[in-house]
């Protein structure tokens, strides 16, 4: 598929649908929507269109369908898999005018929202009513619920509460042919037909455009405690994680940061984290006070048994929030260290976390690249992050080899190539490693039947070609080559 130029006639049709002010076509505007949070991917859309309601979305989709114009739905562009880069041009579809919280139903414990609502606003809104929406990606101050749903995002509370999918009970979706489907509803149970809600969750904008979502809520836990444990050995920290899980405690949060990550985070947050320890665990539990206190004590003991240098309980909620905020800044803070930061999302069964951390270390030294690791340790979800320089081609090749090997190892340990960031364009060449040819085939059939012209977010999830396992050569698919070619 080649990028097409939009004629002035088509542009005026867009303007007629959404209003003059909601169609942006200047170079500056197109450039501002040519990237997301993924390093090294960039490509300009032909126009940026911001519908105000579902009806307008339908009209846009119909127009695009008739003219074969690609549509890239975009929330806040914080995804880390090049999921919103308009690689094939077309239009970027924004939801800045569809950002209202529509209804809080306290009887059914549901919240109905438009896709452009900022995650954190939504969380704070329901908390005012004593209710709780648990998925809290580190980007929640910026990310939209539409983006969260389409990436099936996780967060710091994922260990105990699960991910976005677990809280989406109904969707309104516009399909590539302009049909509007409503899936699910305010129901606790629903087995009428295929689980379409689940199909659209995590579909990365490739199957439908989410125009409304009904989310299920839970009661806000009455009490919460937060502690932090310092380790002189990375492995002891990882061991602690496995032991906590094995001892049948499910904490709300069990996060991990290694030394290099701690250093940059402290540099930014200045909250007095020690920079001479090898690892930190951030541990939280919520629920009824007596149980929380008891389990926190148990977990503290496990930390001590695994030779934590120190375990500190946050003395109040402000202190706890400082620690969480610091952890959330980890990825961006790592960007201080080098011109390019490339992060991965390898995930293994929880019991394998220590092994995985060890393997990442070995791989980094094997390829002589700098990898820092942090992540949702309790979920088995690590973010090995490579500090590199895209302009150094020799190093970039080694980085790519290192990541390929990390994927390979995590799959061998029973894991996956991405736990929460999605496939997008970045990981598409590796997807078959996880799913196998048959898995990819099923997905392709679904895609072809819903979006036969591949107009919804083309170039994402499905790769032109799959990477050869581990033996990596510098083919034309390498990110750097692509980057230069498309920009």
């Amino acid at each position, binding site marked *: 598929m080649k990028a097409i130029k939009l004629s002035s006639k088509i542009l005026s049709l867009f303007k007629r649908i959404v209003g003059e002010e909601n169609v942006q076509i200047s*170079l*500056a505007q197109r*450039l501002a929507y040519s990237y997301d*949070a993924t390093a090294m991917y960039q490509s300009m859309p032909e126009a940026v269109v911001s519908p105000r309601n579902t009806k307008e979305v339908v009209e846009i989709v119909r127009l695009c369908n008739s003219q074969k114009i690609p549509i890239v739905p975009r929330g806040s*562009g*914080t995804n880390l898999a090049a999921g919103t880069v308009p690689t094939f041009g077309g239009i970027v579809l924004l939801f800045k005018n569809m950002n209202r919280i529509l209804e809080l139903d306290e009887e059914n414990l549901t919240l109905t929202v438009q896709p452009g609502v900022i995650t954190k606003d939504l969380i704070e809104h329901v908390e005012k009513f004593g209710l709780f929406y648990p998925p809290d990606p580190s980007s929640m101050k910026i990310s939209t619920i539409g983006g969260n749903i389409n990436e099936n995002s996780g967060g710091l509370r994922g260990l105990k509460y699960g991910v976005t999918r677990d809280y989406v009970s109904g969707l309104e979706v516009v399909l590539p042919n302009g049909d509007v489907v409503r899936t699910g509803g305010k129901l606790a149970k629903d087995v009428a037909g295929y689980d379409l809600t689940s199909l659209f969750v995590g579909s990365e904008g490739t199957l439908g455009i989410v125009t409304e979502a009904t989310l299920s809520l839970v009661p806000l836990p009455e009490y919460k405690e937060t502690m932090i444990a310092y380790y002189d050995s990375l492995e002891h920290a990882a061991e602690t994680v496995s032991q906590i899980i094995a001892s049948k405690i499910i904490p709300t949060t069990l996060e991990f940061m290694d030394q290099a990550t701690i250093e940059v985070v402290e540099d930014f947050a200045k909250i007095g984290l020690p920079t001479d320890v090898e690892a930190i665990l951030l541990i939280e539990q919520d629920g009824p006070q007596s149980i929380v206190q008891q389990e926190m004590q148990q977990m503290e003991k496990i930390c001590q048994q695994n030779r934590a240098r120190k375990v500190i309980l946050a003395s109040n909620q402000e202190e706890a929030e400082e620690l969480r905020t610091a952890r959330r*800044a980890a990825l*961006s803070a790592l960007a201080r260290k080098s011109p390019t930061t490339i992060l991965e999302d390898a995930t293994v069964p929880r019991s394998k976390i220590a092994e995985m951390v060890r393997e990442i270390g070995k791989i980094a030294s094997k390829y002589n690249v700098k990898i820092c690791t942090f992540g949702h340790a309790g979920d088995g979800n690590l973010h090995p992050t490579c500090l590199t320089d895209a302009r150094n081609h020799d190093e970039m090749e080694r980085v790519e080899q290192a990541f390929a090997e990390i994927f390979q190892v995590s799959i061998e340990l029973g894991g996956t190539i991405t736990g929460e960031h999605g496939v997008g364009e970045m990981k598409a060449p590796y997807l078959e490693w996880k799913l196998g040819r048959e898995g990819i085939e099923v997905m392709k059939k679904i895609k072809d039947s819903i979006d036969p012209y591949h107009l919804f977010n083309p170039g994402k999830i499905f790769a032109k070609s799959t990477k050869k396992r581990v033996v990596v050569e510098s083919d034309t698919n390498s990110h750097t080559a692509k980057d230069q070619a498309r920009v």
Partner: protein
Amino acid sequence: MTQTVTQQKIRQGFKDAIQEESLLDCMRCGFCLPSCPTYVHTNYDETHSPRGRIALMKAVREGLIPWDDDVEHSFNVCLGCRACEPACPAGVQYGHMLESARAVVKEVKKTGIIEKTVRNVAFNHLFQDQKKLSRATNLLHYYQRTGVQKIARKIGFLSLFPEQMRGMEKILPTVPNQKDLKERGTYFSAIGETKATVAFFTGCLMDTLFTETNNSTIKFLQHAGCAVYIPKDQACCGALHAHSGEKKSAITLAKRNIEAFESLSVDFVVNNAGGCGAFLHDYPYLFEQESNWQSRAKVFQQKVTDISTILSKLEFSNFKLKAKVPVVITYQDSCHLRNVTKVISEPRKLLKSIENAYFVELDGADQCCGSAGIYNLLQSEMSMKILDDKMEKVKDTKATVVITSNPGCLLQMKLGIERSGLSSQMESMHIVDFLSDYVSFEMSE
């Protein structure tokens, strides 16, 4: 993409003046977005976000897109408030890149932004409206009479006027007698034990329009135990120049100030205007090409301190501060005091220590009021949008005094109070004036 000669020059200028490394510091996470007033007030338009502007600078530098009117518009709309910096975990130095970019554009395009604006205001706004014009003429006479005009012109003070001249006369302070100013001494000894020796940076605008504030500042410094020098040959800090792309004049002024202050070998260089203080603090960045000056600037930088910081350092609140009448107060941060000099808690602590004064935190106090130096004239529509939004939040505090630490913010808040019809129940004051007018002390003799 084909580019005009001007566009090519701008691209080359970016290559020379903005380091690729600085641009690459941005990993595009978007953490800065919610902190950016122009992003929020344009209904989340990425073109008007820090991440977007950095991407634009990078794209222009790389030749991906030319510097055209739309790109320029994005940078004109930027407040330069630098709220994006403390929000950025990657430590991106947006403010310095912005300044460099503006300097390049100004250099290549020659016409100054201030100049263009003043002309624009004159031709497009004033001369089209008889009423506006006569008001403006009144103002002008006013200036000529008071002799502020010359200085005002020099620093582009005209540009502090919002497009709608509405309420402007009311918010301007009574201009002090220039004779008094000349007769002020150059040294004031500490009252009581001498705890520190300081030099006072008077600031051009502060000293001409807010002489009383400066006099009170000196008085409080003395009481707090400072021996105060006022170097005669100090100059304007240069912030307004640099922010509008006149980097060269800013450098000249910076050198004069460094010279004027370093000869005194004082412990602190105290200022009472957040914008000036931040710019003094940032002097080392002006001298990236002149290492000798840079090291002198660094010594100078270490000494730059704002009034609330030094008062809290010297434990001024021990003087049993008490408001003469019970009063509800709130505080609007000066962007640069907060985001550049990182002075956040000091003024609040000082205000909270005052008995009888009930401090209410202003929701969004950390966000720019829309004054931003010359901004309220250049981008009056955005500026007024931000201001009106701010005033809604100010109203919620139920405060009767809105306290600020920067003359630009002070004028803007005064304008906001006028615009929202609150002038009978609320006033805006510089923190020093508030201490002076509302608060009593048990001072040492």
